[in-house]
């Protein structure tokens, strides 16, 4: 049984890599039918993931699969590679495989005719491989390896249309920003390794439990925050969130898969995996980062006009929610939101892709190359033209806005209860957490319906474009329909309950509270959340309703002119700040990037023009001058007077030996080497 499970896990991991390898090496030959290779292999991966998922429901003690092999050893320093599949990992495996499969299917249509069609599917393959690696990893080292590999696949896919300068910039920015976080993660890993003596996840949890850090919990807090830095990068948390909106330069299905549903959630997943060793101090830091991110990104999303950018900031904001949830100890809620978000956000992105696809084709038919197909101001009234896209997107929007009967309501509600309970037990400044949570919830409802109304309702921007809009073909709409179904609350609560406000179902059953070994009393947390539950639910219903209501007034009924409000708000620069993303890119550019490049330029001048050319070569110059002087003395006195006497004698021999000196350098050297050989032989006689 164990070995069968191992084999399945291996297949699950490597089949997408096989897809990558086949398509990279034979992609040119396979050409238009590249997707068959990819779909088949990802399809099998999906079936395996479903199998692992099914085991969640059969009763078991401990993990579903835990096995590892030695990777390499130096004697005392040994690294292992292995799988640790528990219920959380099994659910995550299914999320990744399912969305990956749907995105593959969707891309068949979306990427049709692209000159690098096979390359695209190859990259999707290496992404799925790397992502599965993170999910399966049983140690921080293995996680780090795949962590960087998803970074690579993200780099390749963001820069897929690398002829565009914006895409080329975005992929570099994504990789480098992530590396900043990875440095922290790496240092944190080293602290953990040299204190506990292992990189294994379970080993670390046990080590902390057994008091490896006892008396030095502060170091564990620091280590936890450092490892979390990796998640700050990967899950686009403040202050490293800047790469994710730019990452929208990649093809839209990629945004759905990587930059919405799975890879960016890897940071959250990692925090879930290391949750037992995070100290209350580290968790507090994590909660604050999450809260800032959730609120800030939501504020930015209000004013964006590019449909994908709205969704990108919404993703950042929702990831902030998940991180905040984990920070306040609402472990279950955090991972629940990861799962529900993966479904509705993938749906939203794919819907936006469907709209962009339609807009693109309409504009193409009109030979209009200036209008931006992603700008919502050029859309409007698409509801009648694209009914499937519209309904799917509406369902997903209801889910993200936190409306009952839809999945987002359940998970967001649980998070908000967590923040409230955290405030109840900590008081003081921690009121910021629920405030950020509820505030972001209201704003989310507002901007998401703004998106719906601007895109699907109202008068079309231009009748010409509107006339050329068509609903997308079935390969694209099928994933939309499926994902919108998965955005229903029912999907996550079956078979226990059909009550729309009760979140107890298979999910809560499968992901029980874990123990925290670093000093957080999880029972107290659980109790607190339970008590805060109804208050949170009532409040969240109110704020969501408020957000939707304001959005209806502004954008559907147009009772209030949005531009008047925004120009009023701009008296305090509120609009500009939101529209310009709090100027964070500009600040980094001005304070970090530019000065650093200047510094490196100065360094190169110091190193070469000053140090080498002046100082080092200065010695050469001095030596030359000195030897000039001494040469002068040497020649005029020693040479001309004394040596020449001998010289005349030597000339005689020289004339005869000259013949061997033919000026070919290698002959001299060869002579030298043969001389060495000769010397070896001669001196042996002594």
């Amino acid at each position, binding site marked *: 049984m164990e070995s069968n499970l191992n084999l399945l896990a291996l297949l699950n991991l490597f089949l997408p890599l096989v897809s990558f390898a086949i398509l990279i090496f034979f992609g040119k030959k396979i050409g238009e039918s590249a997707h068959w290779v990819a779909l088949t292999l990802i399809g099998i991966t999906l079936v395996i993931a479903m199998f692992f998922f099914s085991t969640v429901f059969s009763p078991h003690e401990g993990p579903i699969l835990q096995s590892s092999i030695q990777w390499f050893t*130096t004697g005392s320093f040994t690294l292992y590679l292995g799988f640790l599949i528990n219920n959380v990992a099994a659910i995550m495996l299914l999320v990744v495989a399912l969305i990956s499969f749907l995105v593959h299917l969707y891309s068949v249509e979306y990427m049709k005719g692209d000159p690098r069609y096979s390359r695209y599917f190859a990259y999707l393959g290496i992404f799925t491989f790397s992502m599965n690696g993170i999910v399966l990893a049983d140690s921080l080292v293995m996680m780090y390896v795949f962590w960087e590999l998803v970074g690579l696949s993200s780099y390749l896919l963001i820069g897929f249309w690398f002829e565009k300068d914006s895409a080329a910039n975005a992929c570099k920015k994504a990789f480098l920003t992530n590396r900043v976080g990875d440095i922290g993660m790496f240092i944190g890993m080293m602290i953990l390794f*040299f204190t506990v003596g292992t990189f294994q996840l379970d080993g670390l949890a046990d080590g902390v439990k057994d008091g490896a850090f006892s008396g030095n919990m502060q170091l564990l807090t620091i280590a936890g925050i450092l490892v979390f830095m990796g998640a700050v990068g990967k899950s686009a948390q403040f202050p490293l969130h800047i790469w994710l909106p730019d990452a929208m330069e990649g093809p839209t299905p990629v945004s759905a898969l990587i930059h919405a549903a799975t890879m960016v959630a890897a940071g959250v997943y990692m925090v879930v995996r290391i949750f037992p060793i995070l100290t209350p101090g580290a968790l507090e830091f994590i909660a604050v980062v999450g809260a800032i991110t959730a609120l800030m990104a939501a504020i930015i999303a209000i004013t964006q006009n590019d449909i994908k950018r709205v969704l990108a900031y919404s993703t950042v904001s929702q990831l902030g929610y998940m991180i905040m949830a984990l920070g306040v100890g609402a472990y279950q809620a955090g991972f629940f939101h990861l799962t529900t978000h993966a479904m509705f956000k993938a749906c939203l992105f794919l819907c936006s892709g469907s709209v962009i696809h339609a807009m693109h084709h309409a504009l193409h038919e009109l030979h209009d190359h200036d209008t931006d197909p992603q700008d919502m101001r050029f859309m409007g009234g698409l509801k009648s033209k694209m009914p499937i896209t519209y309904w799917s997107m509406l369902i997903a929007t209801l889910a993200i806005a936190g409306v009952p009967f839809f999945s987002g309501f359940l998970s967001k509600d649980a998070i908000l209860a967590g923040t409230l309970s955290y405030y109840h037990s900590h008081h003081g400044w921690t009121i910021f957490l629920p405030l950020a949570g509820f505030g972001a919830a209201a704003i989310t409802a507002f901007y998401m319906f703004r998106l719906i109304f601007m895109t699907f309702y109202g008068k079309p921007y231009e009748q010409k474009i509107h006339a050329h809009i068509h609903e997308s073909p079935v390969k694209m709409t099928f994933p939309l329909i499926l994902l919108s179904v998965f955005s229903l609350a029912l999907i996550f609560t079956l078979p226990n309950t059909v009550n729309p406000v009760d979140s107890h179902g298979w999910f809560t059953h499968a992901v029980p509270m874990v123990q925290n070994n670093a000093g957080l009393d999880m029972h107290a947390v659980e109790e607190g959340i339970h008590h805060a539950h109804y208050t949170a639910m009532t409040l969240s219903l109110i704020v969501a309703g408020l957000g939707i209501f304001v959005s209806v007034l502004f954008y559907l009924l147009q009772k209030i002119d949005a531009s008047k409000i925004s120009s009023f708000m701009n008296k305090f620069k509120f609009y500009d700040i939101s529209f310009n993303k709090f100027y964070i890119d500009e600040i980094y550019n001005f304070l970090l990037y530019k000065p650093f490049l200047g510094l490196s330029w100065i360094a190169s001048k110091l190193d070469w023009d000053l140090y080498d050319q002046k100082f080092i070569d200065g010695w050469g110059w001095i030596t030359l001058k000195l030897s000039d002087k001494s040469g002068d003395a040497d020649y005029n006195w020693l040479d001309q007077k004394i040596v020449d006497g001998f010289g005349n004698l030597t000339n005689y021999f020289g004339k005869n030996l000259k013949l061997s000196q033919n000026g070919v350098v290698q002959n001299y050297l060869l002579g030298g080497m043969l001389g060495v050989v000769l010397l070896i032989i001669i001196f042996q006689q002594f």
Partner: protein
Amino acid sequence: MESSILTFLIFLPVAGAALMLPFSKLYGKENTHYFKWIALITTGIQFALALILYRKFDPALSVTESPFTVQIDWIKHFNIQYFLGVDGLSMPMVLLTALLSFICILASWKIEKQALGYFSLFLLLDAGMMGVFLALDFFLFYVFWEVMLLPMYFLIGIWGGPQRMYAAIKFFLYTLFGSVFMLLAMLALYYYSDPHTFNLITLIQTASSIDASIWGFSVKYLIWIGLFIGFAIKVPIFPFHTWLPLAHVEAPTAISVILAGVLLKMGTYGLLRISYPLLPGEVVNFSYILAVLGVINIIWGAVNAIAQIDMKKMVAYSSVSHMGYVLLGMAAAISESSAGAQAGMNGAVMQMFNHGTITAMLFLLVGMVYDRAHHRWIIFPRDYEKPELAGQPGFGGIGAQVPIYTGFVALAFFAGLGLPALSGFISEAMCFIGGFSAFRTLTIIGTLGILLNAIYFLRAYQRIFLGPLNETYKDLTDINKIELATIVPLAIITLVLGVYPAPLLNMIAPAMDGIIQIVQSAL
């Protein structure tokens, strides 16, 4: 057979060079393909011998037990021996030297200018390098060390770029300056040890009992300094590094490969072969400085690489940075944690090998684009000879034009920036892990290298390959078969060792255990 294989490894190239002479007499110097084929076959056989050696090599045996060891009296009067041996430290270097020599002959296939001279000098260089890695007698080591210098001088000076003479002289004087100190240290070791010997294995026992002082400095300390200067210049360790960018830039492609791939390793090899076992007490005292220098190398090399607009110079500075990892890893030999010490030392030697293969790829790839475009500017300098190009991007968007070439560059760049699943990651991570166990703060500063190395590689990659195609290069041709033959083996090694480093590590680990034990005993 077994006891002569090392001798063959060294002197086979000499024989090859000698064989070229009758051919040049018979067929004339114009028939350059004779020399090329002789060189190729010679280095091919040498590589095959190195592989045979690797197959039969048992890492568990010390050099005194190894069947390959050759020990013959050479200059009996001075107790100088022809003493060759191979252990876990030299085995990877021998493989690297043989592989890169063979590949470099292929990469030199286009050389027509004085081909006889080029290929025979190359083979002599090859012999010198092999000799350095196999010699276990300090005198013999020194002879090979110097033998290597001269061909290198001519190879840069005759076949190099526009500033070749300046570069060659600078390289030569810099290295010679270091050699003088090494020579003094060697003689001091000889005279102060009892019995007088150059035998590096005997000296491990006797050198530690040297207890004299000159001008108030202990002799052992002075010897350490002398050796250190000699080796530091080769590595190169900051602030002895400025010969390197110039020499790399001016040298022809294959010679840059040898310089960065093999010659730099001799510095760290020398430290590990001679300084570490002979002077463990000094290693303990000096390790902090070594770590500091390592971190400076990592940061300073990378920061300088970021500012470079010449691809070759960028790669050259990246070598300075990557050799810093080796120093940091080596310094960890004093770590209290045995896992840390082993990670550091093994990581250091692995990094020597991995950097050798990765940087070889980088230089080969730069050479390929240079052959086609006749320049290698990422951005043309402001004072460029053609004023209309000054300050303009040198390339741009050629990724779609030459996809296979671009793929290999991507592989090499990502290997250079330490992407997991490629060999550089494991060795760099191990150097950091080792360094962290002994020098926490320093290593944390050093980890900035993770980011800095990514910056220049990705910036260069974007500027050359991404964005809209620069119309000048719309007829650029993709990689050809010979070029493919040079790059594919290195790419495979990078990939295989990135996924499965055990073969390399198992070879190294026992030898490192020995050195760590010696160093730790001096703590």
